[in-house]
């Protein structure tokens, strides 16, 4: 097992290296630089040149890359060109927010999706099944920024409710924190729920046809035991795969929701980074997200072996 994990970790190196190369050089192709965006309409050529020099943008591009990579290897992600602040602490504090949002969204989607998927699976081709499928797909079909805006408006207009302003960390004030994150997580959870419902339904369908389910029934198990202890647990592997992929996608895909709900997450950091051509921030964040993404894949794979005794890694 450990050997397997180690091998998987080693395999991450080329992928992360690839990500670093792609993001570094892509950013340099995008027109515009940080100096110009800082100085805006008040830029003078001298000021621009000065700023570029400060940021090391006057060096040959491969040298810039080596410098950056050299830093990253030693755990130094560099400093933001925009603020001059060290990047890594910023990334990790923002990651915490995005991660919490992601997990909360995932959690909400499970609460919605797994029961629905089970019901649809048990009652295949019934009206209930039909209804569940349509409703769950409806969630996926609404662009989440539209859903978010409608939700904000409706809550404010008809319920005089808006989430508290100003993000507060979970450990500072858990209740306020959850109030702030609830709506965005609900929006993201709704859009995630469709795929999970679908996967749950088809896995349950598939499992319920298997012989061992008949054995369990023949043993006199209550339907509840059949579904939840046996069918659901067996269906969890494909469901987990979907969930793992979604968590990965969400980590980088919360940009829009973070912006709408004013959450200082990683997505916003990257987006502002791109808009301001704050290369170091974008490079660092994307590399970090890619790292977390591949780690989540690894964790999901490892979880498989806990869920399913047949899967062992050597």
């Amino acid at each position, binding site marked *: 097992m450990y050997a397997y994990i180690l091998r998987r970790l080693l395999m991450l190196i080329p992928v992360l290296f690839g990500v670093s190369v792609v993001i570094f050089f892509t950013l340099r192709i995008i*027109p515009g630089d940080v100096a110009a965006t800082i100085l805006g309409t008040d830029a003078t050529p001298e000021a621009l040149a000065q700023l570029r020099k400060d940021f090391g943008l006057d060096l040959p591009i491969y040298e810039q890359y080596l410098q950056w990579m050299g830093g990253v290897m030693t755990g130094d992600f560099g400093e933001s060109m925009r603020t001059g602040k060290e990047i890594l602490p910023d990334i990790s504090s923002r990651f915490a927010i995005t991660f919490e949002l992601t997990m909360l969204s995932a959690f909400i989607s499970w609460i919605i999706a797994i029961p629905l998927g089970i019901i649809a699976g048990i009652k295949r081709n019934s009206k209930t099944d039909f209804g569940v499928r349509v409703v769950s797909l409806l969630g996926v079909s609404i662009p989440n920024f539209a859903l978010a805006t409608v939700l904000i408006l409706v809550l404010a207009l008809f319920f005089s409710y808006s989430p508290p302003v100003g993000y507060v960390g979970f450990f500072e004030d858990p209740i306020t924190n959850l109030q702030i994150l609830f709506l965005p997580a609900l929006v993201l959870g709704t859009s995630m729920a469709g795929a999970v419902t679908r996967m749950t339904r088809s896995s349950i369908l598939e499992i319920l046809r298997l012989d061992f389910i008949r054995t369990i029934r023949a043993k006199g198990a209550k339907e509840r035991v059949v579904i939840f202890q046996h069918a659901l647990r067996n269906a969890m592997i494909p469901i987990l795969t979907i969930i793992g992929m979604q968590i990965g996608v969400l980590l980088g895909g919360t940009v829009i929701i973070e912006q709408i*709900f004013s959450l200082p*997450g990683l997505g916003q950091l990257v987006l502002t980074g*791109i808009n301001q051509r704050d290369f170091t921030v974008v490079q660092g964040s994307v590399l970090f997200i890619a790292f977390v993404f591949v780690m989540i894949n690894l964790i999901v794979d490892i979880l498989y072996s806990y869920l399913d005794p047949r899967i062992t890694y050597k």
Partner: protein
Amino acid sequence: MIKKGFKLTFIFALLASVLIACSGNKETSGDGKDTGGDNKQVEQVLKIANDQEPAGLDPHKTPAHSSVRIYSQVYSGLVRFDEKMEVVGDLATDWEQPDDKTYIFNLREGVKFHNGREMTAEDVKYSFERIKAEETASHIASYFANVESIEVLGDYQVKFNLGTPDATFLTNLTNSSAAVVAKEVVEENGDLQQVAVGTGPFKFKEWVPDNKVVLEKNEDYYEEGLPKLDEVVYYTMKDEAARMSAIRTGEVDLTTVNPKSASLLKKEKNIDVKDYQSLEYSYVGFNVEKEPLNNQKVRQALSLATNRKAIADVVWNGDAVVSGPVAPSMGDWAIDVTKHELYSNDIEKAKKLLDEAGYPDGFDITITTASTYPDMVDTAQILQQQWKEIGVNAEIKQIEWGEYIDTWLYTSADVLVGRNGSGTDPDRALQYFFHSKGSANVWGFSDAEYDKLVESGETMLDKGKRKEIYNEAQEKLIDQSPNLFLVSPMKYVAVRDSVQGFTPYPHNGEYILEVSKK
């Protein structure tokens, strides 16, 4: 497994109800505050929702409005504008002008930086030298290019020696970026982007990126009884819908909104919507070095084809005035452009001009604009429609802000839609943007006569004559049309009725010094 699942669902449902219950409580306690506020001291905390995150806090380096609105509360300058846009003392109590090229400022005594040290003439000297230093790369360096030296005459007296007489000097000093900073803070931190230690009414407390900036009351502020607020919190809320919702429910006290939102908020009984005519105007910039826009007649034709009134009506809900190169809110300095021939929206004449210029069938062109600002995108779309009438087929390219700035800087677009702040002195609007050596003249516009005109305007100290010079410059500029000047919009600030004493000014839309909460 199942039991766990149910438990979680249960806990979750519980949690959701608690959350809603909690927020409910808060609502009611808030109401209580409103009604029974007399016997209880109201928390003097002003919550402001901003649409943009501050880019940085260094007043000398950061021109972004999102930054200015914050650091202008932390720093003071030598002088400032009063509500009538007259220059009055701030850190300087008064000043004298031994000759046209010399200013001596007498400083207020006993003013302390937020770190407790007293502010002296040395700090003034240091600050302006920092602005002028090349490595600072300050965006207002050019404002003070004319300053040859600064002399400390005493702890509370400082002298500025100018190279030429400069009519804009005092106005330039009112700029929030012309702030007096403390040397030791700069040296300690490298720059002032993340810290702010000034002499202004509010002290910088913390900045949580993409979340909020907190300022607290400067107890030692030199004006008696001010500021009235204990704390100001600027929340970054980029989404208009979120800001609307927050001001409606009282989560924030003050926010800027667009005209349509303003008209909705006007109906709310707990919210006042204040408006003011901004110093900004929208424009269409031409690359005057490239065909066909190098032809003055083409530019004039486009000006004639442009219905500015329609832009004001559609993009700004009617709350914008047609503008020339100097925004109408600059009062006397602005000429009345509405009667100008090129503002007459005469399609026939436009077609004739195009014909004369050799484009009887029009031409194809790309209008570039920033996706960040819906008003610019809408303006571009209207122009596209209006120009179609004279056979000019435009395609729209909207780009995000980083690329937009780059495009602007290197004039890599033929036609650029944007918005300019015309500043507080016509010199900025006319020289800075259109002198052939003006820092912001990216259009390739060059006219020797015009250059001479605005140069003389800068040194002309007689206000009447100066006005004449600038009137002529404006006429000339419109005639040449290196840019089409479109409209100057109203700005809207929505305020909860618990906020007292808030009045926005064109030169200071978020003047909160005298604000208090009830």
